[in-house]
């Protein structure tokens, strides 16, 4: 599974993108985020407040309840500020 971070989530996590293999029990976005938080203090800091984390699975907006699998690209980022 490919994870991509943007803006200050990227800075706090200390990584732009990474290939990860979560345990089989991780089947949805919420479970993935909980697992990612255990990977490093930076990850924990980036994902500490779920209210400010936006999620896209395969480039489409997703929610905490959406499923994720090994072939997915999951992006984690703060609320967008374009325009």
């Amino acid at each position, binding site marked *: 599974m490919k994870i991509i971070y943007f803006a200050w989530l990227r800075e706090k996590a200390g990584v732009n993108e990474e290939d990860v293999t979560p345990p089989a029990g991780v089947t949805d976005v919420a479970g993935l985020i909980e697992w990612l938080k255990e990977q490093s203090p930076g990850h924990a800091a980036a994902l500490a407040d779920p209210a400010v984390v936006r999620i896209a699975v395969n*480039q489409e907006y997703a929610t905490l309840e959406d499923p994720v699998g090994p072939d997915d690209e999951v992006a984690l980022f703060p609320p*967008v500020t374009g325009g």
Partner: protein
Amino acid sequence: MIRVQREDFDPGAEMARLGGASHGVGGVCAFVGLVRDAAGEAEVRAMTLEHYPAMTEKALAAIEAEARQRWPLEDCLVIHRYGRLEPGERIVLVVTASAHRQAAFDACQFLIDWLKTKAPFWKQEETPEGAQWVEARDSDDAAAARWNGDPAAE
């Protein structure tokens, strides 16, 4: 049409192109977003726009499709820049062309409101105190929510 690019654009040329494409066009409306030199009290020397290339065009195309479904547009164009921009530089262009002005005005406003809350761009400002990420504004969410059809939000 959607364009995501580092380079500047020419609003006048783009408006002329959309207006001239068909004689069914009765009005062209445009919005141009620019880099300000201040954010509240802080001086802004420049800003850098980061985006999610694989998702950006997809998200903008979905927003354009929504506008075309809601209003009878002859054409519409969104150009969004990324990279480092200085105060006064253009960031974004929305142009809508329609037979009548109301659809062009409304669709243009809808496109910029939705784009601000849905397109995956992030701004980081350079200030004398250092770099800071721009925070999303509740007022932008409220502006986008106006188009959700909830009369309470209008």
